[in-house]
Structures are given as C-alpha cells and as structure tokens.
C-alpha cells in the first residue's frame, strides 16, 4: 500500500542514502500518514519496503516519541511543559487545555479530532506557553489564542494540510 500511495516519495527518500535501512524513519512517517497511526499492518508495510523484520519497526516505533502505536486524533496537540515552559505557565495551560477539550493528558476527544499530549522541550522556550499541532508550532499562547486555534481546526478542511503528521517534508523534497 505504501509503495503505491507514496511511490515517488519513497523513491526520493531511498535515493538519499547509500543504505536502505536509513529510510526506515522517513517511511514510518509516511506509514503513519497513510494508516493514521503505526498499526501492525503499517509496520509490516514499512518492513517490507525496507527489507527488515517488522519487529525492528516495532522497536523503533516504541523508541521515538513521534510515532503513535495507538490511534490518535486528527490533530495531535503536543504541549511543552518542560521546565522553561513550566516556569512560564505551561502547567496551568495544560490544565486549561484539558478542561476546554474535556479530556486528560494522553487522551483523545470522543469525536476523534484532538489528542492531547505533554512533551519535552520543543526549542521554543522564549515563546511559552506553546504547543505543536501535528508538528506545526503555535507559540505565545493564552486561553484566547487556544480557543481560536481549536475553533480554526474544527472547521479546517481536509485539504489545508494541517491534519498531516509532517509528511509534507517528504513531499517537499519532490518539488
């Protein structure tokens, strides 16, 4: 399936490296996009494309935090609450976000739109509180801006690309 949906991207990715195995993380991003998360099927697909054992893909999925082994919402909100952000109100911001979305950290809204996670430093400490939504930075947030973000995402169309888990980076290199 991956090889059909992303044949050009895979070709471009493989050309970057002298050893195929280096393409495994990029292909896991593509698989996450194609399958919504790294399901068993998705991992087998990646393994077949790279020529490694699916267990090795599982291992990588478990090690790197940006891979999701369980289904996630259409938008994954990753709020940094590492020390620098926490000093600037990130913990209160997380509480506020949980309340607004009606979910706890690590949970997904029943409509499947939003997952909320807390993450380690995202290199935006001067602009705290901040979060990434599907890897896009949203900085210097407050309650008002958060509300605006959520309502924008609720009404966003599938075409605006904001629902992707960063797969643009691999499309970008095609242009």
């Amino acid at each position, binding site marked *: 399936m991956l090889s059909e949906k992303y044949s050009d991207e895979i070709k471009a990715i493989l050309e970057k490296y002298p050893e195929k195995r280096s393409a495994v993380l990029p292909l896991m991003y593509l698989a996450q996009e194609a399958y919504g998360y790294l399901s*068993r099927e998705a*991992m087998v697909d990646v393994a077949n494309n790279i020529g*490694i*054992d*699916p*267990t*090795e*893909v*599982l*291992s990588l*999925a*478990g*090690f790197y935090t940006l891979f999701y082994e369980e289904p996630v919402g259409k938008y994954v909100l990753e709020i940094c609450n590492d020390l620098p952000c926490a000093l600037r109100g990130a913990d209160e911001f997380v509480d506020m976000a949980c309340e607004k979305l009606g979910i706890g950290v690590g949970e997904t809204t029943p409509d499947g739109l939003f997952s909320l996670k807390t993450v380690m430093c995202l290199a935006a400490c001067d602009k705290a509180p901040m979060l990434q939504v599907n890897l896009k930075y949203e900085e210097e947030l407050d309650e008002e801006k958060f509300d605006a973000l959520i309502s924008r995402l609720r009404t966003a169309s599938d075409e605006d690309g904001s629902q992707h888990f960063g797969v643009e980076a691999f499309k970008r290199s095609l242009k």
Partner: protein
Amino acid sequence: MSDSITLTIDDVAVTVPKGTVVVDAAKLINNDIPVFCYHPKMKPVGMCRMCLVEIGMPVRDRETRELITDDEGNPKINFGPVLLTGCTVQAAEGMVVRTNSSVVTDTRDDILEFLLTSHPLDCPICDKGGECSLQNLTMNFGPGTSRFDYNDKKKQDKHVPLGDLIYLDRERCIQCARCTRFQSEIVDDPVITFHNRGRSLEIVTMSEPGFDSYWSGNTTDICPVGALTTADFRFGARPWELTQVASICPHCPVGCNTTMSTRVEAKSGGRTVIKRIMPRQNESVNEIWICDKGRFVHHFADSPERLKHPMVREEGELVEATWEKALDLVAGRLKMFKSSTAGLAGGRLSNEDLYQFQKVFGQGLESKNIDLFPQRMAGGDIVAQAGITSGSNLKELGLGDAILVVASDLHEEAPVWWLRVKQAVERGVALTVLNLRSTRLDKYAKHIIQFNPGEAPSTVHKMLNAVKVNSGSSSSDVIHAAADSLIEANNLVIFYGAEGLTYDETDIVVRMLANLLLVKRGGRVKDTYHAGRVNNGLIAVWSQANTQGAWDMGVRPDLGPGYQVQSDRGMDAESILSSARDGEIKSLYMVGVDPVGDGNLAGRGALDFLVVQDLFLTESAKVADVVLPAQSWAEREGTFTNGERRVQRFYPAIAPVGKSRADWLILAQLGERLGLGRPPFAASILFKEIADQVAQYSGMDYRSLAQSEEQWPKVGGDDLYYGGTAYRNQSGLGQQWPAEAESREITLYDIPEITESISDKFVVVPIQSLYRKGTLIDQSNLIDNRVHRPTLMINIDDARGRGIVDGDVVVVENGKFQIEVQAEVNGQARSGIALLRGTGSISGPIRLKLVSKGQ
C-alpha cells in the same frame, strides 16, 4: 608489528593476541571480571557497566616517545579520570589493569544495586536460581540490603509467551540485550527487539508465530538472569537437582554436542526423566549453540506411545511376547530365507547398531541385500577420500578462503552448518551457492548459480572445466567468476546435498566436486591441491545424524565395513522395496525406518516375513510379523559419526522404557542365534571390534572418544565471567578420522560423459524442512504449531494451468508412492518447479501426476 601484547592485570603479566579485550585477557589468568552484557561470542557493547575497571597506560614523552619512568625506574602509568569497561577496551602493550581496588569493588556494588532496584528478587521460584549470573555476582560483590523503596518497584508482566517455546519474565530482565544481539548479530533472525526506552525497555516480538527462529532456545542459555525460559523447563526443576549427561544430537549430520539434564521424579513414577537439553561446548562442531529441534524434540524418548515389549503376530493380531520367543522366531524364519532376506536401516542408528546390523546380514545370513533408507545421496566413498581433513574447524576459515554449497538448504537441513558458513562469510570467506532455488544462504553468497532440474551435473561440469582452464581473468560469467574464487582460495570447503538431484545425479556431482578439490593448478595453491590439507575438503549434508556412520560400517549393498568393495553386490534400497512389492525377496528386516508410513511401500507388499525394530508402532510395524522394541539414544550408549567424520560418544541418560533393548544388543542376540557367537558385553567392547574392522576407526576407543581439553571461550560452571549456561565439555570432543587424501595422492575421478538430460517442463522437487513430520517430531507436541505440514509450493502460472488454487489438496504420485498435500500457490516458486515441503523420505526430483481434489 607484533601480534601479541603483554599487559599487567593485578600485578600478573599476561600475553594475549592483539585485539583481545581486557575481560578476556583477565579470564586467561583466571581473573573473572564480572560481566552481564558482554558475551565472548558477540561484539562488545559496554552497556551494563559491570566490568568497569581501572585501566592505565604508560606515559610517554611527547617529543621522544620514550617511556617516562618513576624514581624506581618503573614506567609511569597514567590512569584516566574514570573507570573503563573491560569488555570494550582492547589490551595494549604496557597497559596496567586494576580489578580489585576499592573503587572497582565499590563500582560493582553500585551497579548491582542499580540492577536490583528493578529486579523482583523472586530467586526462590526462578528457574535460573542456582545458575544465575545476577545471583552469583550479587553474592560476591553486591549490597546486602536494599535502599530502594519496595513500593517503587516496577510491576511488570511475568509470564509473557514470546511464542510457544520461550517465555519472558519482564521483571527479571536486566536489559543486557544479549538475546536481541544474539538474534540479530549471530543468527540474523531479528525477531525479538527492545521496545520503548529507558527503564521501560522491554523485549517484544512481532513475528508470526512469535519468536519465529530456529535458534530461540539459545537465548535462554545466554540470558544472565531468569528472564527468558523455555516452555518445557520453566518451573520444571531446580538446577541443583539435575544430573548432567553428555549426549550427541540425533537429528542431523552436524552432530551437535549436547547435555541432557535429568532428574528422578515422583510425578514420573520414580523414573529418571530428561528435563531439558542444552548445548555442550565443542568449538569444532557446534561451539555453544544448538537449534531448537535439538533442544525441544526429545520428548519422544519418554512418550507413552513407546514400544515396551516385543510383539509377534498370532492369528492376525500382534500380541505381546518374550524376547526369547520373538528372537527365536525371527532367527528361525531368517535362517529359512537366508540370502533372500533383505534389511533396511535408518541413519538414526549408532555405529554399533549399524555394524552389528551388517554383521548379522553379511556373516549370519550371507546376504548383502542391505542398505540405508532413505538413500537420497551417493558419495560416502568419495568423502572417505577427499572429505574434510581431520583437524579442520569451520571456525578457522576466513579471508582468502572459499566455501561452495551445492544443492543443500543448510538452514533447514543442518542449521548449525548454516550458522557456521554465515559466520565464515562474515570473517571474509567467499561463498558460492549452487542450487535450483533461492535459500537463506543466498543472502551471504558472493556467487549464486541456479540450475534447472536435471542440469546439476552439467552445471557443475561447466564449473569444473572453468577451474581446469582457469585463466585468472575476471570473467563476468558467474560460473567462471565462482570457479576463479574457488581455485584461488587458500582453503576450500565444499558442502553437497541432494536437493533437486536424483541419487544417480548426486553420484556424478560428488565426483566432480571432489575433482574441484583435486585440481592442481592456479592461484596460490600452485603445485598442490586443496584436498588433504587442514580446513579443506568435502562435507556431505546427509539426511540423518549417522548416515556417515552407515557408510563407514558398510550398511551398503556394495561395500563392507571400512569401505571394502564387495565382490558381489546386493540389492540397494530401491530394489529391496520393489522386490518386496513384487515378491522377489521373501523377508525383510527393518530397523529404524518406516517405508510404509512414508508412502514408499503399500502395506507389506508381497513379503512372507517382516520384522520391524523401532521405538514406536509405526505404520510399518503395524503390518509386521514381529515387532522388536528398541531403546532411544537417551537410554543407551553409543557413537555417531557426523558429516565432518567426527566420531562422537553419547551416554545413557534415562532408564530403558519397558523391556526395550539397545538396537545393537537385539541384533547381537539375533546374531547369536545365527551362529555369530555371544553378544558383546557392552557397546564399548563392540566398538573395539569396529575399531579392528573399520580401518578408519583404528586407534579409537571409548576412552579416547571421551577425552576433552579446555576450550575458549570458557562457558558453563559458576564463574563470574559469564559465558552462559551452555555446558563445559568434560565428556569428549570426539575424533575426526583422516580422509585418504591426507596420506596419499588421490587422482582425479573419471567423470562419465555429461549429457544434458532433457528435463520435463514441470517437476516436483522435494525440499527439506527442519520441522518436517516424522516419527520423532510427531511425538513432541511442543513444536506442533511450527511443524511444516506437507505442502506443495507451486508457481501461480503452473497452478493455473493445472486448475489448482491455493489451499487445494493435491495428490502427488509417481507410481511408487502417493501422498496428499496442500497446495500453496505463490509467486516465489520458480515456474516449472513445484517444491514439496514437509514430507518424509522422498528423493527427487520427481516427475509426477498432480490431481487436484479441491479444498
């Protein structure tokens, strides 16, 4: 530059080869630097930090590079600011290591305390308790009390099946990665890995079935704690209750050295039972590894289905009889039929059994109608001349050497040879693989040559011609390129099997392969040939553990013991079976074979009298007149000769089942009734006779076969330098008998004219699988889920043309036999070649009818 290095460890000087790491150097002088993650068979990773020691280097003047000395004239040693891992630091000239300073012992205490924070300390119920590296090291260096709050312990799953053979206790795991590194680095089956990270690291598998590897059991041996245990041993016994008995694996021609751990137990009615089978170190044979078949397929020995007493047919029914009665009956009838009697023996029998078998026929009945069954492959006589040289060790092959593997899927037929060939390639050996399909060896091959059915002889012939006219040019043609790499090699080892070859084809091919070793030209070998030199020669990938022994003992229609050519030739296995079918022979004696069950003989054919000597009431036994219960290899002693012609002893581990007797004894007692004199008192006495009669075995006896010497790496025992629980070899390394080429010049074999045989458009080729159905495996339900059911793998186009769809039951028949198998339609089988997997003793290729019976 010198290849050896002298360093000082705790004031003791030791000289080691360049590249030796500090922990190994220390072990050589019996200084056990404790380790967990380090294993002498794997690349060091320095993870567990248990081997941290003080390492200092002599200080040199920056300008002059001269050693700087102290007031007393000793070299000044600079110890770095931190301790270093002894498993990763290579010994260097003048290095000074301290392993017993307080900073080192404090560190050991600290690291152990860290490991124990997460450890469940359930030693009283842990299978590893008593032979556990963590337990031993804690006793020696660890803290006596815990400062870790018990409530903070991580609670994890304790009974995680990684498939049905291996269980994981996540709490006991200390994340040393020995198991995952073994699976990826040593056996290239990375089907278990770490998941998550940090303290959440855990071993997982995603294969189907779980932990899908022929090597999984080895991880339980090298696991330094009780995290990995085997399904059949876990909670089965405590290590200190076990008696260790040395044995030899009876499943394939590698002849892995094993240890059976036995125990007398009430729940088995006071019998001694085998609790587990583990590898026994023999660096020339299996090092410290065994495959899962060798480890798990032993339960047949104490199966309730075992034959317990002799039986004779009375009024159509098999009824219990005394040995006296049964043997008298057999002797009486055989005397009647005399030379119109024939015998078939299996390659699972010991040398003593086989010798006695041919003696009963040759001397007792004056019949030469004996053969090994199944007789897949020729060439024992050639191997006796150009076989791998005594004193060889596949472990010594490396850069500049070559291996050729012909018509064999080593991973399925002889897994440890597959492993050793793979590792040889990793050391730089150039591997050529010649087969009619892809196998797991292809991944490591430098040259891959595929032939069509019927074209093996002509393909090898082309290679032989290319060698003879070796131009030294780098030809693009794969056969020439491969031929160049063979003839240029310092050392050359050739494995040959019978996959896709008829018996007659193997007979031609083996001669040509021997000639490859006997060609005197080219390369670095100039005036000599490869054969007869250490680490060179032919290795036959026989289908059974002691097929080599059957050749040596003369269980052949044309050869006597020690390869003496017989003046009148008897019937071979094929003729014996066809004569049994048409009544040309009247009586048949079968030991350890089941041609009826294999589909090679329908019922008892036209026989007047049939004797079956076996472990179980096989299909053949069911139609026999007399059934004689034999002992398994676990109940008696004996010797097997492996494919490298190493004669190895095995020892009795458990009491005989019922009234069963050793095969050799039954045959000797029969021989007594045929006028061959009193049976030998013991197998060892019989072996003396073998050593007298079989020239190749001269000088061997049970004592010499039991000799061992210390091997590297050191494993087993309770030392703190932990090589795993594989057993130290104290019961014999065996003796490899010399090939003729070692003592005399062998001339090139005559090769008959090779004609391209016109192969059919479509053939079925039986292929070997490790877990194929068979008498022994059927009795060991542990690997039931992994047994390869009889399957016909057929190319999608071939299937379509014959109206076969995936999952159909098809009948494969060729007039002599008939078998029903399931069709697996896939794109991997080559067009025109269907592969028949998981069946018993069928040789190929076969041209046959396929009838689809639907699903």
